[in-house]
């Protein structure tokens, strides 16, 4: 290779490197712009969805006259932080939240015991009348809760359970048709070969359920736990009907006390509501990965 050829080659190589660098730069700039646009769009969307929450927070720091003033002030001129203290002074919010937490735990335990058992039986076992029983169970989902309210009240009244937590806890130990349906569908997606292999290794039906099916059903169980939490935490009607003592009310009923006969103390109400949703937000924060995975694998939407 003579010197001229060597120079030409080096120049060509340098030019190619420059072109590649430019291409790289162009590519990374485009990628960066793409990320920026995507994140910008998502941030705008997140802010949009957070407006109600921000409005709640803003309202919780306002005086009563400021709440509906025009033009609205997002940042109150003198934040009334004592609204939070007033909300706690006015009603035993901590007690209400503890009661809700108790109901959530008890219901979750109940559902975790009953739902997998019933769902496994429907999904894997053979017994006479299985289809009819499954359809019967599904049909109970079609009945609006309000229709069942009076017969259920009558039943619990005869069992002397009115004024106690039993009417709010006991049903969860007998399974929730919605969760049973979900679990049945999920268990059906688990290959039967796994059961059969375990059985050939000497596993009993119980062992198959607890060692094979349940560990593989984690997404469905997460959905069950999170939905049980949310539904129990937010349930207003049933605690209202069955409970009679101020000391036993959950937060859903407790918050309703902020609405008077003629008006609502919006600032205190918003302060109390913000505090009451903290456990829900914390739960979602920790469970979101499993929850989203569970929801997508179960095909649940909005």
């Amino acid at each position, binding site marked *: 290779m003579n010197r001229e050829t060597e120079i030409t080659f080096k120049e060509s190589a340098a030019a190619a490197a420059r072109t590649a660098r430019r291409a790289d730069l162009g590519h990374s700039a485009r990628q960066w712009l793409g990320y920026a646009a995507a994140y910008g769009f998502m941030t705008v969307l997140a802010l949009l969805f957070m407006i109600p929450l921000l409005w709640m927070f803003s309202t919780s720091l306002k*005086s*009563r*006259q*400021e*709440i*509906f*003033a*025009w*033009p609205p002030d997002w940042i109150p001129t003198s934040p009334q932080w004592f609204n939070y203290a007033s909300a706690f002074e006015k009603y035993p919010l901590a007690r209400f939240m503890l009661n809700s937490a108790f109901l959530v735990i008890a219901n979750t335990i109940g559902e975790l015991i009953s739902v997998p058992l019933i769902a496994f039986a429907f999904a894997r076992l053979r017994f006479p009348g299985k289809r009819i029983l499954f359809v019967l169970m599904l049909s109970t989902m079609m009945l609006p809760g309000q229709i069942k*309210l*009076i*017969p259920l*009240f*009558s039943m619990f*009244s*005869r069992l002397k359970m*009115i004024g106690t937590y039993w009417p709010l806890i006991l049903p969860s130990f007998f399974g929730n048709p919605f969760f049973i349906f979900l679990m049945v569908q999920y268990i059906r997606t688990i290959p039967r070969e796994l059961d059969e292999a375990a059985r050939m290794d000497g596993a009993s039906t119980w062992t198959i359920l607890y060692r094979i099916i349940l560990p593989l059903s984690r997404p469905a169980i997460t959905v069950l736990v999170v939905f049980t939490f949310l539904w129990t935490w937010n349930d*207003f*009607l049933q605690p*209202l*009907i069955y409970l*009679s*003592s*101020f000391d036993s009310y959950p937060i859903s*009923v407790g918050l*309703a*006390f902020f*609405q*008077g*006969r*003629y*008006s*609502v103390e*919006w600032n205190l109400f918003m302060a109390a509501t913000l505090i009451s949703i903290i456990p829900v937000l914390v739960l979602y924060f920790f469970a979101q990965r499993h929850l989203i995975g569970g929801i997508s694998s179960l095909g649940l939407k909005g």
Partner: protein
Amino acid sequence: MMQRVSTRWIALLVLVALILPNVITLAQDNVVTIEWWTVNSEEYSEEAQRGLAAQFEATHPNIRVNVTVLPESGFDERMTTTLGAGEGAPDVAFFWNTNWYPQALDLTPYIEADPDLGPETYFENFWLTRAVWQDKIVGLPLGVGANFVMYNKAVFDEAGVEYPTADWTTDDYLEMAAALADPDQRRWGGDRPRGPFRAIWRNYGAFPYSDDSTTVDGFLNSDASVAAYTWLWDLVASGATPTPADLEILGTEGTGPIDLFLAGRLAMATLNQGHMLNAIDAGVEFGIVPEPQVEGNERYVNAWSLTASIWSGTQHPDEAYEFLSYWVGPEGQRYLMENGNLFPSIPEVLAEYENAETDYAQAFFSVLEYRQVAEWTNAHPCNSTVLRAAVDAWDLINLGEIERDQVEATLDGLVEPSQAALDECVARLGG
């Protein structure tokens, strides 16, 4: 010797152990527990009501009152469920829904035997509209409330408009609302009546149908009724009043536009004594006038009291009446006035109100003297069937769907279906 003493002690202890529970049970048997359901509201707090129950128990050692305080927004659901189930309902509670009246104990024999309590104890018009139903005494009226127009003095001063006076008319209302409205500040002059069944329609002299419950034509579409609807049309067309959507969104859970009023965005609003207390707490300068009159006509007020009753399924009617007559009698209402914000339905107790001499209290008390919208509606059980049509016409105007010259024709068009509904209702109730 020691053994004999021990045996005696053991025997004594066994004897006491056997007798004591029976003695306690006997003592408990003499104490009757009654269930009292109530709500927590601006007028009677949970604390005040528990205090009232404790005071009652102190003077009635044979009766224990088990108080259940429910949220205002859930009381109807709880009562309807228990009354529907026919069990688990309280011995004493508010029976503020007329659908519950059939399950209220008839208090006539108790009232006749009670030397301290009777129709003369209460404001006559509240007794007639809230205690008496189908010739039975279904309860006792607790507290009084009424609608009136509250005006925000700061807004009036800023707009340079004179305050309204008690003798103002519906035409004055239109003029003032227009003068006070300021679209740039998103401020409205006055709100609009939410239904024809309130005082304004009656002030025009309108009724849904004849007093003998036979004829709609000439009443729903009478000149008086057309004039009332036309007044509403003019108010809506003036743009000086919030739209139904504005009121729905900003109207505080359907309890009236108090928040808009407190924020100074509504110069005049038809509110009530509970809102009046809100405005005092908020430090807003306000005045009170009755709803505007129509010259030459009798004036009405939309007023109410809450019917407190005994459930007909109670196992302890005598003890329940003891408590009811205490709660809704002079002693109980005085206690709730002094320890809460109740305006008693007993004139002599209301006269003891500590701020009775204030302008707002005087204005509120004067409104209570007018005839009540409920006098007619309570006496005519089929009124809601015809009022439904009247509300439809009201809504058409509110939504801007009919022109001014179509008001009369619209009401004429509602006569036939309303007549059919009235006939059906009257026949269903046995004439």
